[in-house]
């Protein structure tokens, strides 16, 4: 990505892409990795599946360009589409691979201050138990924890991505963390 390209705003790219698909390539470049990470952390799809989902996401983004409203950040809007496409895929496939591709750093971010992580973090067994606790979380909690702590989205952004009221978002974040920590404690790993 050149400096010149970096200086173009998302909104300008959207306007350019409406008439020229080549300009859309820059949008794909900017968001491919971020959305890949988001889907990887919230679902159990293989890399190939995620790439297929992402292609579908970007086709939708291109078709819906005229629906983009500048009152929202473009990143929020594209996350909305990615999230909806992902949910559709989960419903279609209804399959869940046995492993969760969350890194140790990811887990630390979610659990920070809830448990004395540093003491335990090196234990492979401990990490496996946390992973399986996250695996047990209902999808809506897992998704919201990923958005808040790993994607580092604000409550307003999460509200727009999930299309849920701000109070509901705050409650889900808080309840999600609480459930996760309780699950871990119940397994006597804390």
């Amino acid at each position, binding site marked *: 990505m050149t400096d010149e390209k970096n200086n173009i705003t998302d909104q300008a790219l959207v306007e350019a892409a409406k008439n020229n698909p080549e300009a859309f390539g820059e949008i794909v*470049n900017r968001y491919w990795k971020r959305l890949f990470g988001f889907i990887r952390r919230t679902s159990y799809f293989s890399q190939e599946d995620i790439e297929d989902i992402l*292609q579908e996401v970007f086709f939708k983004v291109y*078709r819906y360009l005229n629906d983009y409203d500048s009152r929202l950040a473009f990143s929020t809007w594209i996350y909305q589409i990615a999230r909806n496409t992902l949910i559709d895929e989960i419903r279609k496939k209804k399959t869940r691979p046995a492993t969760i591709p969350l890194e140790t750093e990811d887990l630390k971010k979610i659990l920070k201050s809830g448990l004395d992580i540093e003491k335990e973090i090196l234990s492979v067994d401990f990490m496996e138990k946390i992973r399986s606790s996250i695996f047990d979380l209902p999808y809506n909690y897992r998704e919201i924890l990923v958005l808040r702590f790993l994607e580092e989205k604000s409550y307003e952004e999460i509200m727009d991505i999930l299309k849920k009221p701000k109070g509901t978002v705050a409650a889900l974040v808080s309840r999600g963390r609480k459930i996760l920590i309780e699950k871990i404690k119940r397994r006597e790993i804390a």
Partner: protein
Amino acid sequence: MENPAQKIIETIKRAKIKPESRFSLRWKNYLFWIGLGLLAILGALSFSLVILNFLDFHPVFFRYVGLRKMMHILIITAPYLWLALILGALVLSLAILRKTVYGYRYNLFLVSIIGILLMSFLGTALHLAKFNSRFGNRISRGVPPFSRGAIFPMEKRWKSPEEGFLAGRVAQIRADNLWIISLDDESWLVKNSAETKKMFAGEIKLDMWLVIIGEKIGEKEFMAELIDAAPEFPESHPKKEGRRPNFIR
């Protein structure tokens, strides 16, 4: 995947995918807003008919009936149909609003308050423009008798002599009493005294429709404390039921 952007652009070009028009993407949202507008009008109209249902209630009645009886009669003859329609319009509006593009951002409590205020203002405007009485008169012509009570419960109010409310057509006039034929086609002897207050100018005449506040003092006997002229149907009304009072003012 190697260079996903290139692959996506090639597919877009090959499949000739084009950005869809804003209207085709937003038509459902526009429909929701039209629906919200229609519900606001329905709520406002219902509110104006609630106002209409209380217009026969002169504030001076409170002095003669007393608060307890007044509240009782207001509760049993409240326009529940129109109140339910207001509530229904409000609940449906909130459900539709939630479906709009930014519906999740609105605070439901605040939106409910704004919705009620909006319906009240619009309803009052419809009342001031006399739209409610024109509408009421129009629908009253086609309303079957059994559903009339639900649509215009103020008539029921004047069929409650036990509560102190009676209405009827003057059949006979004597020095200190008069006979009336009530809305239920019953003959009532209405006594009056020096304390009985008449709310209208001019004399009581035969065939005139009256509303009377007072007390039931015996079988088909009523002591009048306050007498007012009942509004009648406008001259243009077909009067299918004969001369009847029209409480739709």
